[in-house]
Structures are given as C-alpha cells and as structure tokens.
C-alpha cells in the first residue's frame, strides 16, 4: 500500500490553501463590470403587498436596475420547484406556488419582493432602503401549534388548515393490536427544536450573461451545482443546460442549507441577462438568519409497547413537522422518508406506525439540516428507549441489547421499508460503554453529589440511512430526480491524474480522500492527483453532496471509473509487453506479466495511450480517460453508539458535558483523521441542538433569535475532548465497502446529551425537559 493510500491519516491537501487564506469563495470572485444586488425583504411575517414604488430608489446614485415581483411575473418564468413529492392519505401534498420575488403577499420575515442592482453594494443598499413598499400587515401563524389551531391565519389559500400533507407509514390497527398485549407502555412528548444552520460562509452568488454566446454563468455557494443547473434551468428560467454554467467554488460549510435552489440564484441569473453586466450578491449574517432554510422543528408524541422482559412489541409515533412558508427543495421528504423509515433504529421492533402532518407557517422554509430527518428519528427512538428502561428498572444498555438486530440477521428488513445491509450494534455499544467507563459511573455520580452537583449518563444507539441513494427506491418514494453519482478519471500523458466528481466538498476533505483512493489503486503519488468538483462545465454530471453520500456513491463511481481505467491500461500494457491481456497483473503502479519479471510502469502505459505510435489502434482507442455513473443498490447504514455524561449545577441550572465517548461503524475508513474530524464536528452540532441552539419566533412571526447575541452557537469551551473510535462492518454492496460519516455526530449526540440530562435531573423529579436544555430551562424544571 502506498503511504498515502486507503486507511492513512493523510493531512488534507486543501488545508494549505484554506489556512493561508487562499481559498476562492464566491464572494472572492469579481467579474469585470460587476454590479451589486441587494434584495428588498419583508419586515412582516405576513402581509399583503399593496404597492411597490421604485421611482425614488431608481433615481438614486449608482442604481442600474430595480426589478420587482411584477417584473418577474411579466416574463412568464417559473416558480421555485420542489424536488420531492410526498403523497399523503388524502392524495398528493399541497404544493403552493413559490415565486422567487413575492408579488402580492409576503409570507415570512425576509421574504424577498424586489432586487436593486447598483454599481456598488452600498449604493444598492441605499436604494433598497428607498424602495417604498406599502404593506397591509396580516395576522401570522408562526408555529405549528398556531398554524393548526382553528381559525388560524392561512399561509396559502390552497392549503386549508395550513396542512401540506397528512402522511402515514405502517398499519395503525396492526400496531394497536401489538399495544393491546403490552406489559408496559412508555409514552413521551417531545419537541425537536428548530435550528438555524449558520454555515461559516454566508450564501453568495455572482451571475453573468455573455451576449456573444448567450451563455449564463452562475457562481454560487452550493452543495450541488448540477442540481441547481437542472432545477433553475429547466423549471425556473427555462434555459437549456448548454447555455447555463453553474460553478460552486470553495464553499465554507453547508450542513444542508446549501443544497437547495434559492430565489437569489434565479433572480441574479435572470437579472444578469437584463442588465448584461455581472451581478454579485452576498448575504449579510442577519439576512442568512431569515433566508437560509432552517432545520428540524418537529412536535412529537411517541409510545413504545414492551413485554415483561423489555422486548419491544410496537412503536407509535405522531409527528407534526414545520415546513415554513414555502416548500424548499427537499423539505417534504425530510420528515417522512428520511425520518419515519428510521424509526426501527437498531432494534427488532416488529410493528411500527408513524403519522406525519406537515404544516405551513409564516416562517422561513424548513429543509434538510445535517442528518435531515434521521436526527429527529434517533431522538424519538433513543429518548423513548431510555425512558422505558428507567421506567421498567432495566439498565438502558441492557434493554438495548435485548432488542438489537443481531449481527447475524443481515440483511434485515425493518417494518418501515428499509433493508439494513450490515452492522454490529452489540459491538459498537460495548466499545462505547468501555471507553465511557460506564461501569464506573456510580462512583463518579457519588463524587459529584458530594460537591452538590447532579450527574447523569445517557446513551444513543443510532442508525442512519446514508449514501443517498438508489434512484429506483427514491423515485418510488416521490423523488423527482435520480440520485446516482458520476466520476471521471482522466489520466494525463505523464501519468498524473485529474478526477472530476459530481459530489461537492465544502469542508469534507474530498480533495484528499478521493486522491487517496486513486493513489492506492493506480500506485501514483497523492500529489500527482487533482480532484475537481463544483463546475458544470468541467464535470459530466453530478447530484452533489448531502446525506453522507460523497464517498458511498461518489467514491463508488470513482472506483468504477478506476476499474475501467485499469482494464484499458492492462490492454495497453499487454500490447506493450506482447503478452495476453489475461496474464497482466497490476499492483503498486506496475503492470507485470504473471509469472515473469517483465513489467511496465503506469506512467509508460499512460504515455502510450496518448502517444500511440506503437498501439493496437484497430482494437483500442487512444487516451486514458474513463467515466462511470454509479447508482447504488441500497442505502448504506452507518450506526454506532454515543455515550454522554453531564454534570448539572442545580443552583444555576448550568449543564456541563464532562465526558463524551463514541463508537461508530462507518464501514471501511479511507482517512481516519478526516473521519474523526467529521465525527467531532457532528457531535458539536448535536450538542448545540441539545443544549444551546434554539430558533425562536415570537407570536407575530418575528425572529427573536436573529443574531449571535441571541442564537447560541456552540463554542470550543462548550464541549470536552471527545473519545471516538470506529468499528467496521464493511458495506456489502458498494465497491469500497464504505458507509459515510458526515452526519453521524449530529444524529447521535442530541439523544445522548438529553438522556444524560434527564438522568441527572430524574432524581429531582424532572421527567421532561426540551431542547435546548439551557440553564434557564433546567432551573425552571428543577423549581417547577
């Protein structure tokens, strides 16, 4: 194995660029003649737009153009599409129009209704403030509860009662029957708190139009530029692919919020055609808070039926999910196919029913956020399992063991559609408990008590469906696109390699991980490999990065493309060595005729492919450049166990995480250091959800947590040093045996933390505390 191959903790190739400030982000791009855009946004959660007067603003210095919702409507272009259709009990979901610039009504604070384009950002902003909008404010429904209450203000006329869909999975009567025979039923109510994604780089875009070629180019902060090209080109602006290039350069974090096609992208591209000058827009942080799609926001009641031994008999889950004011690109599938299908968790629960009502509210759209649906599912399952264990007086680890899908039961069909491919849940549980010193907890608790502190420990044995995803499966579930991945391996004449991937790296380290696979397979130096992503003009096609899919799907496409490269290279080598192709072996960059010492290096073969003087031209084309599309047979199922230990100061309510241990099964690991980093980041986000982050709208629909003065992002000193490790059961159905690691921490951690908090507070009679468990909330609960 080369030193930088699979399994090595290679330092990230991209980090020199980032650490020295040489990353090239969208806002770093300046095009000749560039103008700047500022959007006019609603200060109201809900209002009728009586009039928009741009006259005074248009006369201000530097203003190039002002475009309104009426201008957009006059051009007869499309609204922002939703990429997934969920069919509920009463038929397809309600899919209201989503004009990129509001015309007669605004539906959330931040809803955009006009754009001002000027020579400078400051002039655009001055003029945007001078656009006179006459609003007739209307009552708003700013929460799930408010939107579902009788007589609630309507977000969309076509969605009576603000219901987008009422969906279910499983046979309710069957599950009820299972409950009828139960020895014990545990019931919990919970809120999965709404989160603001807060990527470090705010969204930005630069659009330009070339009058000579009639080609549009959009630079945008996207996790999936090809999808943006498809959605924006085909559905919104009606531009064919060959006249629309979308580039997602260095992107500073996404966490899901940059998957979606946003109005600003379409408006800038459309407007660039009108002004025939490049236009740049960069969100201010306050703008990000009210326009980036938020995450989570569920209200759930769940019941678990158990027999006398603690075997799970059935699970019933009733969830209401906030969609926000409009359907963002993937919003409908998050609380359904990415949520309810995971409710079996790691367990053999035979009967499961889940009902989901998706609700429109006068808030920012809600869509996928790191984990997307799976953190919500894990939170329900792991909170109720832990609660049941405490209620029945069974050790929580033992209750889990009694119900795990055994290691020899794979492939395992759950009652909620998925077929788990591999796993060893006992193994990850045992490893996590060992590194958390679970057995020593009692002594630590006593020591805390002596200091007047309450100590608690909590587990979270999570599972996720990743590597999104098999096209046939997601298509049958309502996805309007396939979810395969594409990779092109271009071997250059001197043997260096460029890999073009349809996935997109915005912090995940693809430039290193993919290069390691290529170094391993072709025997080339890792520095002879370049990974290119994020440009529709360079990469054949791609579905982008989300759902921990880059390695499992994009890496598999790479493996397939490498197979093709190897096959062709072997034929060239066979020709060069005048041997039979079947006798050629390839290892460590050398092609050898089996059983002989005749060999030729990879570089010589590459040169021959491009300088085909001595070449079997009748049988073989010159060149060594292969593309593969990979559509997986199944999702992958990373799983593991996280253990959190907290100490609560009962006088102030402050919760401190004193220990956090994780054991994860991600299948084969390409770069352990990068995996560890992904787990750390995920855990911190999960801790953020559990203890710190809570998006609050007031009753009028104003965002009360619209800046970092009020929205608590996790900081380094909020978390301890983590103990993380991996245990591997390879994925059986993809060529690399990999499962994906990007979301695990955010999926597992909230339940682990909250189980620990409940454990700590249980002795003081606290049975329910919602996330985020802030000091004020904990104190309130202790003194209720």
């Amino acid at each position, binding site marked *: 194995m080369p030193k930088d191959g699979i399994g090595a903790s290679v330092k990230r190739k991209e980090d020199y660029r980032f650490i020295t400030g040489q990353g090239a982000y969208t806002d770093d791009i300046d095009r000749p003649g560039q103008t700047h855009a500022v959007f006019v946004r609603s200060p109201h959660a809900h209002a009728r737009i009586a009039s928009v007067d741009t006259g005074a603003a248009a006369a201000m210095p530097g203003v190039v153009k002002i475009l309104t919702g009426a201008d957009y409507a006059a051009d007869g272009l499309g609204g922002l599409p939703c990429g997934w259709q969920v069919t509920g009990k009463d038929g397809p979901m309600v899919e209201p129009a989503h004009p990129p610039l509001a015309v007669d009504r605004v539906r959330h604070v931040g809803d955009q209704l006009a754009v001002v384009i000027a020579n400078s950002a*400051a002039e655009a902003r001055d003029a945007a*403030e001078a656009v006179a909008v006459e609003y007739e404010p209307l009552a708003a429904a700013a929460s799930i509860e408010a939107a579902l209450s009788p007589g609630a203000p309507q977000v969309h006329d076509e969605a009576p009662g603000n219901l987008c869909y009422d969906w279910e999975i499983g046979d309710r009567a069957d599950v009820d029957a299972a409950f009828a025979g139960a020895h014990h039923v545990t019931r919990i109510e919970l809120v999965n708190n709404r989160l603001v994604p807060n990527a470090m780089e705010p969204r930005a875009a630069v659009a330009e139009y070339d009058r000579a070629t009639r080609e549009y180019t959009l630079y945008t902060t996207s996790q999936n530029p090809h999808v943006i090209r498809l959605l924006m080109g085909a559905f919104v602006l009606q531009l064919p692919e060959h006249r629309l290039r979308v580039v997602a350069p260095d992107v500073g974090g996404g966490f899901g919020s940059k998957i979606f096609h946003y109005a600003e992208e379409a408006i800038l591209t459309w407007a660039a055609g009108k002004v025939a000058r490049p236009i740049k827009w960069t969100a201010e942080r*306050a703008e990000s808070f009210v326009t980036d799609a938020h995450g989570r926001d569920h209200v759930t009641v769940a019941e678990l039926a158990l027999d006398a031994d603690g075997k799970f008999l059935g699970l019933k889950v009733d969830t209401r999910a906030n969609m926000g004011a409009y359907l963002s690109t993937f919003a409908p599938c998050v609380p359904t196919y990415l949520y309810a299908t995971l409710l079996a968790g790691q367990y053999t629960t035979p009967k499961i029913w889940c009902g989901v009502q998706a609700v429109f509210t006068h808030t920012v759209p809600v869509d996928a956020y790191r984990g997307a649906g799976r953190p919500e599912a894990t939170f329900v399952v792991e909170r109720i399992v832990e609660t049941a264990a405490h209620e029945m007086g069974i050790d929580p680890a033992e209750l889990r063991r009694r119900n795990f899908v055994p290691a020899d039961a794979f492939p395992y069909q759950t009652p909620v559609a998925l077929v788990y491919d591999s796993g060893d849940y006992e193994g990850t549980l045992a490893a996590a408990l060992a590194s958390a010193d679970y057995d020593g907890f009692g002594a630590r608790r006593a020591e805390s008590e002596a200091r007047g502190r309450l100590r608690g420990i909590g587990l979270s044995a999570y599972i996720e469906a990743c590597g999104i995803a098999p096209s046939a499966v997601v298509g049958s579930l309502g996805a309007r696109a396939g979810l395969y991945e594409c990779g092109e391996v271009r071997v250059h004449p001197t043997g260096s390699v460029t890999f073009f991937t349809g996935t997109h790296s915005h912090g995940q380290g693809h430039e290193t991980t993919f290069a390691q696979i290529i170094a391993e397979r072709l025997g080339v130096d890792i520095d002879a490999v370049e990974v290119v992503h994020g440009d529709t003009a360079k990469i054949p096609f791609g579905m982008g990065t989300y759902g921990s899919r880059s390695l499992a799907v994009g890496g598999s496409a790479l493996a397939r493309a490498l197979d093709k490269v190897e096959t062709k290279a072997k034929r060239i080598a066979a020709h060069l060595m005048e041997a039979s192709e079947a006798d050629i072996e390839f290892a460590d960059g050398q092609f050898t005729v089996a059983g002989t010492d005749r060999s030729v290096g990879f570089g010589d073969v590459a040169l021959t492919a491009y300088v085909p003087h001595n070449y079997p031209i009748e049988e073989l084309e010159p060149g060594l450049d292969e593309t593969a599309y990979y559509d997986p047979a199944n999702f992958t199922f990373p799983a593991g166990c996280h253990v959190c230990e907290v100490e609560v100061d009962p*006088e*102030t*309510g*402050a919760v401190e995480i004193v220990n956090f241990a994780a054991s994860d099964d991600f299948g084969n690991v390409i770069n352990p250091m990068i995996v560890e980093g992904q787990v750390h980041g995920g855990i911190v986000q999960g801790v953020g959800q559990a203890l*710190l982050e809570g998006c*609050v709208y007031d009753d009028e629909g104003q965002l*009360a*947590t619209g800046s*970092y*003065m*009020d*929205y*608590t*992002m996790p900081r380094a000193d909020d978390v301890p040093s983590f103990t993380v490790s991996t245990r591997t059961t390879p994925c059986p159905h993809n060529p690399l045996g990999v499962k994906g690691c990007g979301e695990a921490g955010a999926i597992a951690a909230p339940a682990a933390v909250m189980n620990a908090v409940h454990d700590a507070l249980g002795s003081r009679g606290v049975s329910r505390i919602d996330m985020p468990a*802030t*000091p*004020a909330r904990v*104190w*309130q609960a202790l003194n209720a």
Partner: protein
Amino acid sequence: MHDFTYHAASSVADAAAKVAGGEDAVLMAGGMTLLPTLKQRLAQPSDVVDLSGVADLRGIRVEGGAVTVGAMTVHDAVANSPEVAAAIPALAALAGHIGDPQVRNRGTIGGSIANNDPAADYPAALVGLGATVCTDRREIAADEFFTGMFETALDEGEIVTSVRFPAPAAAAYMKFPNPASRYAIVGVFVARTTGGVRVAVTGAASCVYRESAMEAALEGGFSASALDGMTASADDLNEDIHASAEYRAHLVGVMARRAVAACG
C-alpha cells in the same frame, strides 16, 4: 454603513474640539460597539473621532492604593497586568472574561462604561469598588455615573479619560453569562472596602445597581451564609428569551454568595 467623516484625534483637547466641531460627531474607542452599530445603519453620525492615537489615554497606574486605568486601555491589558493582579485581582479576572480575545484586544474601559450596556461587566466593578470616573471636565463617582440603560452622567462631548479604582480589602466578581452573547445575564461584584461592603449587580436590571439588603446583611457578618435565602426582588428585573425576572433574581443571590465565598 452610511458615509461619515473620519478624524484621528491627537490629544484629548483635539478630540474634544473635533467632537464639538461636528454636527453629530461621535467618539470612537476600539469600535467594538460603535462599528457594528454603524454597519447595521442604526446610527448615522456626521463625524467619527478616533481616540486610538491619543497615547495619554492608554495605560495603567497604581499609586496610593488606587489603580488608575486610562480610558483607551483595552480589556486584555487590564486582564494581564501584574499590577492590577496584585492590587485588585478581581478586576483583572473580570476583564479577562469579557467577550473573546479579539474583543479584549480592541474593546476599552472608556468605551464600555460610556456605552453602559446593562449587561456589561465593567459597570459592576466600578460600582462595586466605588470607583471614580475622570473626564476631560470633572470627576464623577461611579454611583452617580451610570444613570440608566445605555445612559450615563456624561454630558454632550464629554470624554472619559480614566477610571480610578481604590484597592479593596477583598473583592470578587461572579458572572453568569448569557449563553449566546456571553455578556452577563447576572454579574455580581462584591467588595469589602474602607467605606463598607458593596454589592453591585449588572445584567439583571436596566442598569447596574447596588443590592443594599445584601450589603447590610454582609455588614453584619461577611460570609456567604449571611446571604442564605436572599435573592433580589424580581419586580424591576429584565426578562428576555434567555432568562425570566425570577431566574435573574435567584441568580443574583447565587452569584452574590459565590462572590462572597471567593473573597476568602
């Protein structure tokens, strides 16, 4: 940010003249509060007079049992000053817990107290220690300086030049931070001074104030147990998404007891 005219002041007198000369001029210290306000277009001054070039305003002096901190001294300098640590360790500790390293290297004591954010830390130290605010025109006792939410006794164009803290027999500051902003939800500064025990509370109300009942209890016996069962009255305390008035009232008691205990 709207346009304004920038002036670099060369001395206190020069700054005073430039502020007086502007139609709607403001002073700038480290800009930690001022610049975000300008960027968000919440203020539109005609002129900004930058004090960062006025060397006289920077620095720490300890003499005659008092610590004098120049108005333009950044928090980091106070936090890491061996002289402050020796004379009033609680003051150095307080400065070391303001904001983050960037803020501590730009933000100043003059800017902090002139701004008088109800959740800022320094006001508790000034009131808790019975400090004196020196300006280009006069001296103002801390008890008279902080007059209301974001309001002080400073007159139009008056410039804080330094703050003089008498060294106490013992003092400690306990801060319960807002999880988001890390300003104080409640901060209590307790000091045993020659003039008696002082208990100053920040974060809880619209402006820093003294808990006279707690001061009286501590005069009767300076120990944490003297405050057992005592809280602030919740009546006029702040209420927001982070903390109710009751919670703040309770925290005043907890932080006060912890501060007393920390006085040793």
